[in-house]
């Protein structure tokens, strides 16, 4: 039993708004995965709920003739990820919301709720920022459009008035056609986790010269990307291998958009860094250096029990680099599905660390044994 006073199941958007306007204590409930959890925790108890759960017009994804994608705010995360329009046009958004909670939560929680809850850690937040999505709010006085970049006013606060209902999320064609992107979530677990940090990078690549681009593609970019990823775990190896070729030869960055969650009290964009990157060659190592040095000037991370400010700054630098590289790889059709899953990369790193440790242990053992082979030096034998 939830500690609410009254409950109303709205029949339509207008019906919901009328009930919200008439009752000062009334709050909107959609999927319930935030509102009901808050109630359980004793927040907002005694409020009235106006449910928009059963309004079909708020669900589903559509593409208008002018190319605008209309996302129904009451569409649950699973339906977003599985939607053919999302899969074809905004796959990185589908990927991002596929990291929310667990499967059951994704079957209930809605993308509109994810935004209206106002949390900086919302997994759709960073991606929506890079999409420059437009939110359509309808209230008793009519409807208005708010850019998602102006939607948040603080932690858990948005410009949405209590009696307004988010009725559509619009993504304009110029904001997604020709773009590729990648969302990376960092958390300690792979599911049932609130993001310690979320980062979405989207790029629009432009062939500098068609022939050059072709030549670049045969240059084994896939291999070099693997090398680079390993480099992240071991700088030593990078020095040994020299500077490997970066993906995207023959292309320039016509546009770059960098969005973060948990890098500030609200989801944010890093527009200054984006401006610096625009027009640069996609395989120029300097683009990663620019990210490493400049994004932190635009973010305001905090220390919390999840992570210290210092660790978050490190994540902010590293995740944007990885997301940018993956976005470029995807742009040239060489991306890795599921690359947004930060943890496997980390596990790879851990695996490497374990291997290195095994060798080190063997080394120590050998030294202690006066240089004699102790028989435990061969790749984790004594581990097994």
């Amino acid at each position, binding site marked *: 039993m*939830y500690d609410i006073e009254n409950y109303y*199941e709205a029949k339509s958007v207008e019906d919901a708004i009328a009930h919200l306007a008439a009752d000062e204590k009334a709050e909107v409930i959609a999927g319930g995965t935030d509102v009901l*959890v808050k109630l359980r925790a004793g927040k907002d108890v005694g409020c009235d709920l106006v449910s928009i759960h059963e309004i079909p017009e708020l669900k589903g994804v559509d593409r208008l003739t002018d190319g605008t994608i209309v996302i129904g705010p009451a569409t649950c995360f*699973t339906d977003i990820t599985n939607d053919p329009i999302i899969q074809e046009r905004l796959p990185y958004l589908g990927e991002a919301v596929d990291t929310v909670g667990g*499967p*059951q939560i994704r079957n209930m929680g809605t993308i509109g709720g994810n935004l209206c809850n106002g949390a900086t850690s919302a997994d759709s937040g960073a991606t929506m920022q890079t999409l420059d999505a437009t939110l359509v709010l309808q209230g008793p006085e009519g409807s208005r459009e708010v850019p998602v970049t102006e939607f948040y006013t603080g932690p858990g606060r948005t410009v949405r008035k209590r009696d307004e209902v988010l009725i559509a999320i619009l993504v304009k064609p110029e904001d997604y056609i020709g773009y590729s992107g990648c969302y990376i979530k960092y958390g300690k677990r792979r599911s049932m986790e609130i993001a310690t940090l979320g980062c979405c990078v989207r790029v629009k690549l432009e062939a500098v010269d068609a022939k050059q681009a072709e030549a670049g593609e045969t240059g084994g970019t896939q291999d070099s990307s693997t090398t680079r990823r390993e480099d992240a775990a071991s700088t030593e190896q990078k020095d040994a291998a020299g500077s490997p070729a970066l993906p995207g030869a023959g292309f320039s960055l016509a546009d770059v958009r960098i969005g973060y969650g948990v890098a500030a009290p609200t989801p944010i964009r890093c527009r200054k860094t984006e401006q610096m990157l625009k027009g640069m060659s996609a395989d120029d190592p300097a683009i990663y250096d620019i990210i490493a040095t400049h994004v932190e000037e635009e973010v305001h991370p905090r220390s919390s029990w999840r992570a210290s400010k210092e660790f978050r700054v490190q994540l902010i630098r590293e995740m944007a680099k990885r997301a940018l590289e993956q976005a470029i790889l995807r742009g040239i059709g060489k991306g890795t599905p599921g690359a947004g899953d930060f943890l496997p990369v980390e596990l790879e790193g851990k695996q490497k660390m374990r291997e290195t440790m095994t060798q080190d242990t063997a080394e120590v053992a050998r030294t202690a044994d006066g240089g004699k082979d102790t028989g435990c030096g061969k790749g984790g034998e004594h581990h097994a």
Partner: protein
Amino acid sequence: MAVKTLAAGKAVSIMLEIVHMTVNGEEKELAVDPRESLLDTLRNRLNLTSVKRGCGVGECGACTVLIDGTAVDSCLYLTMWAEGKHILTVEGLKSPSGELNEVQQAFVDEAAVQCGFCTPGLILTGVELVNSGRKYTREELRKLISGHLCRCTGYENILNALEKVVGYH
């Protein structure tokens, strides 16, 4: 009209509302308090106690039921939303002859049950996967059961059981 007392001690009047839903294949017409979660209704009004009350905030998955074939946490689902929907709990899996469902049998065969608290929810996720008609890799299964917490088994036998019914052989 039923008079209920809130935690704050304030007495309010809440009308019971009528909800129609099909539970385990049977059509039900129930008078429920609109503040009830589906978990409350299934356990307290219909005595379907396979549906477990765990964390109450959608983290443990013990209260998982299938609503129109989709797994949801019934603790975070208001009964009012179940109007006209089909609900399946583990009680509804038993065949007329009393045989176990193939997912249940696989859990028995693979010893995927210890204390049993997470089992009904996991079985239902298994049934959802069987109904999808496709096969899954172990890695996919790991992600698909990530909304269920099991503190006994370490998940290995649960994954073995699920692989038996929806894995590649």
